[in-house]
């Protein structure tokens, strides 16, 4: 079913059209959110929130962008909102921990030891990469994640982020350079 027809049927409140949208985009949204929040249950909650938002706001969708771009944008905004709220909680937890020793804030941590050649090597690498990614500036992290993990074209990323094609190229290039630097520091310490 083409986007135009799907949007029209969604605006009419057709259940079947909504089911098609959920089936078509749930995999991307779940995995994309997971890469930001690093927690399966939270990613599932965000996925639900995204589709509820799509259902509620479809009448405001003016078709200036593709339906997929619009949905991806909602997904990224929701994931970032969640991360911001977590950061606020963390700050509050740090403040609380000044008074209460039991309340220590949690954060994404890289493995303390690295054992090349073992079975766990790949899992470790993914964890280390996630840790380094979490340290990147927001725009670089989004652009890099969409490009490398979700295999989106630069054009699609530019539409989602609302920036030019050259900005996306620059963001991804800087993200790679920064990741290399962070990983270098990590391995220098742990190898």
């Amino acid at each position, binding site marked *: 079913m083409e986007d135009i027809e799907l949007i029209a049927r969604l605006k009419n409140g057709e259940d079947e059209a909504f089911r098609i949208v959920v089936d078509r985009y749930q995999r991307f949204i779940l995995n994309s959110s997971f890469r930001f929040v690093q927690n399966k249950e939270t990613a599932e909650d965000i996925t639900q929130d995204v*589709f509820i938002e799509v259902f509620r706001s479809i009448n405001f969708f003016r078709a200036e962008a593709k339906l997929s771009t619009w949905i991806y944008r909602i997904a990224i905004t929701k994931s970032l909102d969640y991360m911001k709220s977590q950061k606020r909680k963390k700050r509050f937890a740090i403040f609380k921990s000044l008074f209460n020793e039991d309340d220590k804030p949690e954060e994404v941590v890289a493995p303390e030891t690295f054992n090349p050649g073992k079975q766990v090597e*790949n899992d470790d690498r993914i964890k280390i990469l996630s840790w380094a990614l979490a340290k990147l500036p927001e725009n670089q992290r989004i652009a890099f994640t969409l490009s490398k993990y979700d295999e989106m074209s630069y054009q699609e990323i530019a539409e989602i982020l609302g920036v030019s094609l050259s900005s996306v190229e620059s963001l991804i290039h800087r993200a790679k350079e920064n990741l290399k630097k962070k990983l270098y520091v990590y391995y220098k310490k742990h*190898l």
Partner: protein
Amino acid sequence: MEREKMILEEVEKTLNSIDNVTNLETNPFLFTRIKARIVDNSVEQIKEGKTGFVLKPVALIIILVINIVTAVFFFKNNSTNQAVNTNTTLVESLTEDYQYSQTEYENFTLE
């Protein structure tokens, strides 16, 4: 030198580990859950709407009554004070303008 090379190799391998990332499997009940949440939210909104429909006019009436009562008290007190004060203020200003003595001032106020 050897260590530096090893570090750079590890950095490269880790960057390439993106290719080995496995995707999460979606929940087969996702659509049902989303629909259930939409229905729940709608019911909540209706409930909120109903209580709001009753509470808003009540709050408005209470604010209106408080305003009217305050206004009535304010104007009532103000007019009485003005009536009392007019005479005294006139006498005071005359006394000051014409530099009357204390006795003359008292004569005025007694009258």
